[in-house]
């Protein structure tokens, strides 16, 4: 982004908010259409088509879908295993839809966890993610080092009894920078990642390396710096034996002195947040 955002009302955030909502709407629409026998590939195609129909032409990355124990990344070693397979959905199976569309030059990267039918264990994981959303925001506002926050998130997961599954992500990242993407008529993809967005990420990495920060939020020493102003797609991912759950949404970090405005979630009206609120009301 050319100029860093100052607060939640900044007009340039509106575009990000819209594409993030669009992506979550897509996830909800596709999740509602999932039924026993649908494969991961079909679910990924459903997401792609839904978003294409609504004007999405480029991607930060193509939509993913993971079913069953693949939601916990059981046995994931190489990045190719992230791509959708012919695994079929069965009753009671958890699933994760993950997509990063570019719309009108704005991009979002979201993760949506769901389950086909009843699965109390999956409900528990989803409920336990709430503490992570609060923890992340609180510590970013305190301007703790990204690596430290990462370790605290991992500690919370372990205390809850879970394994940290974003360790299986490339570089073990829990979050990465998100930016505007120049719309080109032709935007090829490499291994499912849009080249325009990758270009942004690489240039951030180059600049950041010079200034001592990184666009990847990881457990490694290159993330040992306070949060950098900008938009971060944050994705804590819990795994518990054959079940996994995550959310992914945009966290805005500004250079404002006001702690409230120094960091905030881009949008609080998202499916997982609504779900937690409903659970609290029900309780």
């Amino acid at each position: 982004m050319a100029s860093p955002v100052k607060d939640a009302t900044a007009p340039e955030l509106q575009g990000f908010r819209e594409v993030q909502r669009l992506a979550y709407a897509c996830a909800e629409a596709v999740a509602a259409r999932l039924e026993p026998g649908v494969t991961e590939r079909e679910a990924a195609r459903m997401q792609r088509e839904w978003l294409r129909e609504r004007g999405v032409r480029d991607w930060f990355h193509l939509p993913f879908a993971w079913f069953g124990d693949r939601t916990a990344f059981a046995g994931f070693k190489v990045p190719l295993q992230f791509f959708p397979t012919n695994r079929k959905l069965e009753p009671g199976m958890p699933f994760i839809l993950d997509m990063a569309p570019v719309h009108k030059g704005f991009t979002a990267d979201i993760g949506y966890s769901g389950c086909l039918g009843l699965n109390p264990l999956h409900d528990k994981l989803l409920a336990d993610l709430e503490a992570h959303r609060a923890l992340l925001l609180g510590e970013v506002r305190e301007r703790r080092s990204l690596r430290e926050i990462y370790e605290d998130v991992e500690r919370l997961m372990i205390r809850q009894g879970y394994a940290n599954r974003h360790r299986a992500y490339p570089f073990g990242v829990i979050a990465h920078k998100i930016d505007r993407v120049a719309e080109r008529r032709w935007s090829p993809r490499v291994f499912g990642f849009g080249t325009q967005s990758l270009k942004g990420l690489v240039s951030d990495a180059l600049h950041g390396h010079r200034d001592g920060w990184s666009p990847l939020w990881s457990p490694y020493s290159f993330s040992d710096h306070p949060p950098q102003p900008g938009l971060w797609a944050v994705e804590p991912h819990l795994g518990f034996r054959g079940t996994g759950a995550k959310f992914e949404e945009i966290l805005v970090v500004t250079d404002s002195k006001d702690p409230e405005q120094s960091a905030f979630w881009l949008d609080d009206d998202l499916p997982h947040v609504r779900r937690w609120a409903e659970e609290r009301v029900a309780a």
Partner: protein
Amino acid sequence: MSLQDVPGIRERRVSTGGIELCVAELGDETRPTVVLVHGYPDSKEVWTQVAEQLAEQWHVVLYDVRGHGRSTAPKPLRGGFTLEKLTDDFLAVADAVSPDRAVHLVGHDWGSVQSWEFATVKRTEGRIASFTSMSGPSLDHFGHWIKQRMSRPTPRRVGQLLGQGAKSWYVYMLHTPVLPELAWRGPLGKRWPRILQRLESVPAGDYPTPSLPDDAAHGAWLYRDNVRARLRRPRDDAFAHVPVQLITPTGDIFLSERLYDQLELWAPQLVRRTLPAKHWVPRTRPDQLASWISEFVSGIESAQEDGRPLQAPAPTGAHADRFGGQLVLVTGAAGGIGRATAFAFAEAGARVVAVDRDAEGAARTAEMARLIGSPAAWGEVVDVSDEQAMEKLAEKVAAEYGVVDVLVNNAGIGLSGSFLETTSEDWKNVLDVNLWGVIHGCRIFGKQMAERGQGGHIVNTASAAAYQPSRALPAYSTSKAAVLMLSECLRAELAERSIGVSAICPGVVNTNITATARFAGADAAEEKRLQQRTGRLYGLRNYPPEKVADAIIEAVVHNRAVVPVTPEARAARFLSRFSPGALRGIARLKPPL
């Protein structure tokens, strides 16, 4: 206690085909009926303890098979023991004790062999609700099993044939005329109780009954009337028309586990259970049998009441057949290896008691255990080094949940630093938890296990540090070496009571132990730094506690003595035996901290 002394027992005679059967009943007659059928050479007395426990919940019926106990014998004996006639007997008993309702059938040894016939022939359809089989295959299935192996003999199949052929020696003996009768009425009958005690660890008492020589002599006709005929021409339609629970004792000297390969083809609704015990399980493992039978019967009853189709039990984890319904207690269960172990047992369907100093963590472990298949799980707060607290816990567990089947003494703390800088206070803390915690656990819970006399298993978490000297971990290694030796000694002592003892030596595993480890001679800030640094090193090694939990489960199943887990733990174990000098060399290196 003998069957006659059980309070509330009612006896009656049922006549069928010129025979008078002695039938005993226990428990509430309005409840579903469970019929227990004894084997050879037994009488219904063999079921005494099982029947007593089942009677708390069910209407229990036992009968002496014709020619056994206080039932009369057919005349002539030859041809009087065919499976067809035994089926008549069963139907007569079932009609007498439960005329309007199908009964749940349980058979041991020859009781199971004949019950397979009952459960697979047409004329009993609708009279049987379920069948629990132990140590007795269907002669028809057995016949097909042999045929399959004879017609396509691969080396493995020939091995299986020869193996079972050797185990069946007594069957050939029983086919000799007169001699078996003479032996049973003479010396063998007299010595049999002692033989049983020695070979099978069957507890002494008023079993076998005085009728044994006659029972055994008559029962020889069970074999002569059926075995050759059925094995030569097995029925092709021997499909079970009821749900079957198969309980396989893994140490059975008469029957090979391989006999039940592919049993699913004959019994479509099959639940498998395995029990680390020898042949006479109704005598040596009554608690476990009663609990599995009860669980199976109530599952079927409630499915019938709700009209739901019968479902296989939920647990799907490794060795669910072995641990389903057992009681497992894990100390240090609020995190790391202890928590992963509690989860692994929960996945196998065990009931779990998660013990830790950290109340919240223990409760959390119990809660998650229930979500992944444990029928019941509890969190308990105890400091394992506190003897009185452990005593109290043991009392509570025994009273509320029962005697522990598997005990995992896992709680431990870390302490690093040179010997000269380790204070006596440090030593005391480490030994109190790491060694005394294990001693208390083994002593208090192990005693309960031994007193029950129905087997069990104790797992102690030692460490690769137990056999790998190091200048950095003198106190920790000493405590763990003691745990290893303690486990080996206890293993020797408890072997005669069928209680296995395993020492697990994990090695460097990614757990929270580093975050709370003490570093002798370091001030608070330095200690914090060292904790973080070792934590990161352990994180880089990233060996998951789940794999240790899997090793623990395997150690229990196979009763392994010492189990090094990570590759480095195994390498060190190897060196400690074949090149201890190399290990001493390594011990001198300063750790990279």
